[in-house]
Every structure is written in C-alpha cells, then in structure tokens.
C-alpha cells in the first residue's frame, strides 16, 4: 500500500502517523499542504495537531490549501481519506464529511484513553473487528464535540456511517459519535488517535486493529 501523510503548518501528529504506518511496512510519503496531485496513493492521511494554530475555528484555514483541493479529487476517485483529530476537523470544514466539531461540552482540552465501541464492523476501517467490540484508544482534543443537524444525523445513522461511538460521552458529541465516514465509505474522520497506540512499549497497541482493517481494505480493493 502507498500512503501519504499531509502536514499543514501547525500539524503535530504527522510524524506519529508516519511512524505508525511504517510499522505496518506501508510505503509512506510525507507531503506538505502545497501537494497538488495525490493520485498515486491508496490512502491519504490528514494528521492531528493545530493547523494554523486552530485559530478562527479548528480546521477552518487549512481547508483552503492546494493539498485539500487534491484531497477532494482523491475522495471523488474513491481513494481512502482518513482524518484523525485535527484531520477530522479539517475534513468537516472542507465539507468532505458532514457536521462540525465544537468545543467540548465541558470546555477544556482532555488527554486520556477512552473506550470506543465498534458500531459498524463492515467499514474500510473496522473490517477486522466485530460490532460491539471495545477498543481503548487515546484521545487528545479540546474541540471534539460532534454536532450536525437532525436530518444529517438520521442519515448518518440510517446509512451506517457512524463507525465508532464513545462508550462514555467524553465531549458531548451527538449520539456519542467518535468516528464517521462519508456516504461512499471512503472518507473517514475520528477524534481518537489510533496512531498513538500501535506499540506495546507505549502501553497500548489497540490502535493496530484500525490499521489492519485499513490495510485489509486496500488489499481487497487491489484484488478486485
């Protein structure tokens, strides 16, 4: 699999994602926000951090970069697009995923490990898991409170676009949403950080299942 990690000014989990992918022997390129052609990649990762300081709104400024134009093209082409934390915020700001991430219900940044419940085990990101499986994954955000309008929320649920929910609602998200896909299922965003949990030495490798699913999905697609 060939993957790209896109670094915006202010991204700070780009190397974490890079190393995580490398640990699965993925061929990874680190690109900046000027990248204009992403057609060569099976999967494109938008990492966490504080793009443009998260000033104005998190993700609001980053969405106007050339790289995000290229991400839109890639999304339409059916390539996998994954936004983690700030990446999720950028994807919603860019309109590639519905809704918005607001300030946590209890305002303030939280760094912790939380239990995620697998809601849809058939996605490109959970195909090695079963419905109801629980993964303990790190979170680190101040704006992870997922909101959208009633109609969109119903659509998300009806189309099984909700992939993970929080077991305990840590940030006030509607329907405890932790991660969603677009309708086509190839664009995915989540607040938790699976890339921080891929190595037993750090005390948690429960994020590996996420990457294994994604690799499996790419593999299946290549075979098809």
């Amino acid at each position, binding site marked *: 699999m060939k993957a790209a990690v896109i670094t915006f000014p202010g991204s700070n989990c780009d190397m974490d994602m890079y190393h995580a992918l490398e640990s699965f022997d993925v061929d990874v390129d680190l690109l900046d926000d000027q990248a204009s052609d992403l057609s060569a990649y099976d999967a494109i990762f938008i990492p966490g951090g504080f793009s443009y300081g998260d000033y104005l709104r998190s993700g*609001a400024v980053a969405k106007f970069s050339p790289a995000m134009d290229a991400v839109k093209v890639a999304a339409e082409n059916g390539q996998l697009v994954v936004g983690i934390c700030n990446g999720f915020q950028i994807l919603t700001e860019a309109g590639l995923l519905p809704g918005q991430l607001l*300030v946590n219900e*209890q*305002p303030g940044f939280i760094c912790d490990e939380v239990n995620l419940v697998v809601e849809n085990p058939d996605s490109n990101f959970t195909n090695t898991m079963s419905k109801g499986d629980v993964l303990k994954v790190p979170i680190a955000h101040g704006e992870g409170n997922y909101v959208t309008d009633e109609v969109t929320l119903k659509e998300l649920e009806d189309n099984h676009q909700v992939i993970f929910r929080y077991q305990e609602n840590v940030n006030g998200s509607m329907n405890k949403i932790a991660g969603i896909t677009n309708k086509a299922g190839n664009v995915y965003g989540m607040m938790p950080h699976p890339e921080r949990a891929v190595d037993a030495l750090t005390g948690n490798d429960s994020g590996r299942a996420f990457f294994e699913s994604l690799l499996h999905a790419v593999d299946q697609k290549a075979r098809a």
Partner: protein
Amino acid sequence: MYLAKIYVTYKPSILDPQGVVIKSALERLEYQGIEDVSQGKYFQVKLTGADKAAVAKEVESLVEELLINHNTETYTYDLEEI
C-alpha cells in the same frame, strides 16, 4: 477605508458550551437574574474598496467563505466608512 464589524453567533438550535459555563460561573458569583448567556465572535475588518456597496459584497463573501461555519453559525455586520 471601511470598517466592518462582524458579529458571529451560534444558531439557536446549537448548545453553546461556553455560554453554559459562563452562565453557571455568573450564578456562582451571585449575579441575579441571568437568563441566558451565549458566546460568539466579533471581528473587525478594515478594508478598502470602490464604494460601500462593493465593500459590503466583499464583506459578505469573506464572512460566508471563511469566517463562519454554516453548520452552526450565523452572523450580522455593520459597515462604516472610516
């Protein structure tokens, strides 16, 4: 030169966590009669343009393109020549 004052607020349907926190802080400080608090954003943009109408169009465009998120926010603005 013109000065645009732009007031961004959450749509009524959106729960504003910061407003909630401020309200309860005011109550702990024993302020009486506080019914509701919301926190929004206040931008001041100084800009030049051909005339007031043109600048107004520009302001609306930049607010809608960048300054607000249509999912949750709305805005009003004032424009004056300075």
